[in-house]
């Protein structure tokens, strides 16, 4: 199997990565970043769709049907678009380990090119949102923080650690997600996640948000030391009690005396000579 990425996708990723790493501090409040759901894979479209059909037949059709029409086991994928498919396959949620398993994040089965091929195939069946291309040039991390705090923190926590939802599902941690996956998730609203349209979170705001996730969340400033997982003060409480008070008690055990002598005559040890 060829493992060379299509050149345009490669360039897009390198550019995005470079801009994420080296984006200059914004001089003004007006962000220029954008997220577009424009086509990013137009060059080898037909070949991609064909490859995608083959892969889909092998790994997806047993639950989703050979034309992605759905079945009792799995939903209809027509109209969900390449963005949805890319998100689910690249995060490893799909394929499921077995038809009744909960989708969990696991190492993706398919590489990037294969994932996009499957996505193209499903796109060709019923349209839908395409794989977004993320341009973080001059994205405003601070504006992204605001968007994150209002829209994302209630489920993913303000530190992006993720937490349990009802019915055994979790809002996943954001520490390992890519910029593209964030864009796809926000626009397609996978599983229990709500969907945010461009009229609610504009493309510019989404780029800001992605900039915050890939920087502030995934590379958090931790000048204070060990960060204890970002799950709230309960972890700090455990450390304060068992490490803080515990160490102080150990000091007390060192400084003070320990066992008291038993009453004279009741001991099981030899009596030493008294002065």
């Amino acid at each position, binding site marked *: 199997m060829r493992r060379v990425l299509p050149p345009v996708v490669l360039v897009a990723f390198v550019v995005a990565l470079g801009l994420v790493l080296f984006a200059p*501090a914004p001089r003004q*409040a007006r962000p220029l970043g954008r997220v577009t759901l424009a086509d990013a894979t137009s060059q080898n479209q037909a070949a991609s769709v064909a490859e995608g059909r083959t892969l889909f037949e092998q790994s997806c059709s047993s639950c989703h049907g050979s034309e992605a029409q759905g079945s009792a086991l799995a939903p209809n994928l027509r109209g969900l678009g390449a963005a949805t498919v890319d998100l689910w396959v690249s995060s490893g949620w799909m394929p499921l380990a077995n038809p009744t398993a909960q989708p969990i994040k696991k190492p993706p089965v398919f590489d990037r090119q294969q994932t996009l091929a499957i996505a193209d195939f499903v796109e060709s069946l019923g349209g839908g949102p395409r794989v977004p291309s993320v341009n973080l040039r001059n994205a405003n*991390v*601070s504006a992204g*923080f*605001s968007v994150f*705090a*209002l829209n994302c*923190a*209630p489920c*993913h*926590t*303000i*530190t992006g650690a*993720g*937490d*349990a939802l*009802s*019915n*055994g599902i*979790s809002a996943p941690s954001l520490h390992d997600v890519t910029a593209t996956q964030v864009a796809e998730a926000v626009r397609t609203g996978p599983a229990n996640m709500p969907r945010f349209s461009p009229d609610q979170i504009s493309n510019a705001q989404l780029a800001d948000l992605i900039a915050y996730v890939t*920087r502030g969340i995934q590379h958090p*400033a931790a*000048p*204070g*030391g*060990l960060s*204890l997982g*970002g*799950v*709230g*003060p*309960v972890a*700090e*409480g455990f*450390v*304060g*009690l068992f*490490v*803080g*008070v515990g160490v*102080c*008690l150990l*000091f*007390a*055990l060192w*400084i*003070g*005396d*320990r*066992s*008291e002598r*038993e009453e004279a005559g009741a*001991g*099981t*040890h*030899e*009596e*030493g*000579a008294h002065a």
Partner: protein
Amino acid sequence: MIDKLFAWFDDRLAISRGGRHLINKIFPDHWSFMIGEIALYSFVVLLATGVFLTLYFVPSAHDTIYHGVYRPLQGQKVSEAYASTIDLSFSVRGGLLMRQMHHWAANIFVGSIVVHMMRIFFTGAFRRPREVNWMVGATLLILAIFNGFLGYSLPDDLVSGTGIRIAFSILESVPFVGSYLAFFLFGGNYPGNGSIIPRFFILHVLILPLLILGLIGAHLGMLVRHKHTQFRGRGAREDNVVGTPLWPGFVAKTTGFLFLIAGATALLGALVQINPIWMYGQYRPYEVSYAVQPDWYMGWLDGALRVMPSWEIHLPGHMVPNAFFPGVFLPGLTFTLIYLWPMLEARFTGDTAEHHLLDRPRDRPLRTAFGASVFAFYFVLFGASSTDVLANYLSLTLNFVLWAFRVLVVVVPLVVFPVTYKICKELQATPGAGQRKRFNVVVRAAAGGYAVEPAPEYPGYAHDEPEPLPVEEIDLSAIEEEDRAPAGVYRIPRQYR
């Protein structure tokens, strides 16, 4: 020279009259008597670091635009309280260390008060004549918890602000006067007129610390008056105190302990991050984060709020809201029980005599079992404050975790009681249980054959301690001429030089 110094003070304050009693005051040596000192010295650390923080913190809820060094907040509208705390963390040299030391010291402060209270409880040190001191101590616990809550709410961040919202709801839930109290404290319906931050500030840095300091003074004053309790053994009786005199032994050890505690707090402040408010963002009443709990000493309240079933009392035209039961009734009941415990126990056991010798926990199995099961109850509630985090990490459903805690909160104390009782009984039946044993060393003779000898003793071994001698009667006049040292200076005896 020392003589001249004391003479100067004597001429003005007559310190020598009580001074000798003071420096001869005896402190028992057992390590469990030092737990209260952990609380005292962590309070000292709190005061010292707190003074530093007050020089930079701006207790105002007014809005400002952040223009500091932390990029994700650049240009955002935040309160001055939040902005000043961010500046403390990133722009003031040593500011983050002081903030973290302050917060860690607060956790240690409340934690050591709880452990100290447990020691007092399990050894029966609250009995006559120390009931009043017990109540002073319980008040100190309440004040410490409150002051901690006020303190971590000052930065006006998203996590602590959510806690303030919940506090408003709990206050509001009190029958008859709840809405009035809430409106008065906040200056209106939530979020109030912005005065909550400055009010919390003055409560946190002035009013409550003054009360705490005053009560600590009363607490220690009563300790001086009653003198320490002590464990049996080593010549201890009801009418004496055995241990180390204040000067020089206790002063040296306790000074060392102060610095050890300060050092532990500094190392925690250096190495483990606490309350990273820059990650949380400015509090806005319409924003919230998941995986949020209060600091651990309020965690039992949060856990109670979660496990409480959704009951409310509806009366004609009125209601007793759901939050009242876990938020007001439970802590009210808890602290009433704590305050009344010495009287309750005296009534229940019929024992109203004066006690200065301590019980060993095993010798009071009913009290120990009761205390252990009550503590287990609150510990399970504290665990319940992290239901969502546990469900996530253990891959369980929220439903299951919540119901598990609802069951555990009843079952665990019921199980702990008889188990603790049994353990006490077993310990009572085993002589020398829990005592440090004198080891035996097996020695092989040169000609063969083995002999068993007791191992050499270590300093601090209580086994071969000499009898206690009256501290008032230290007489250095019998020392040899050569050893005569300037008055007040102790020389190491010649054979050790």
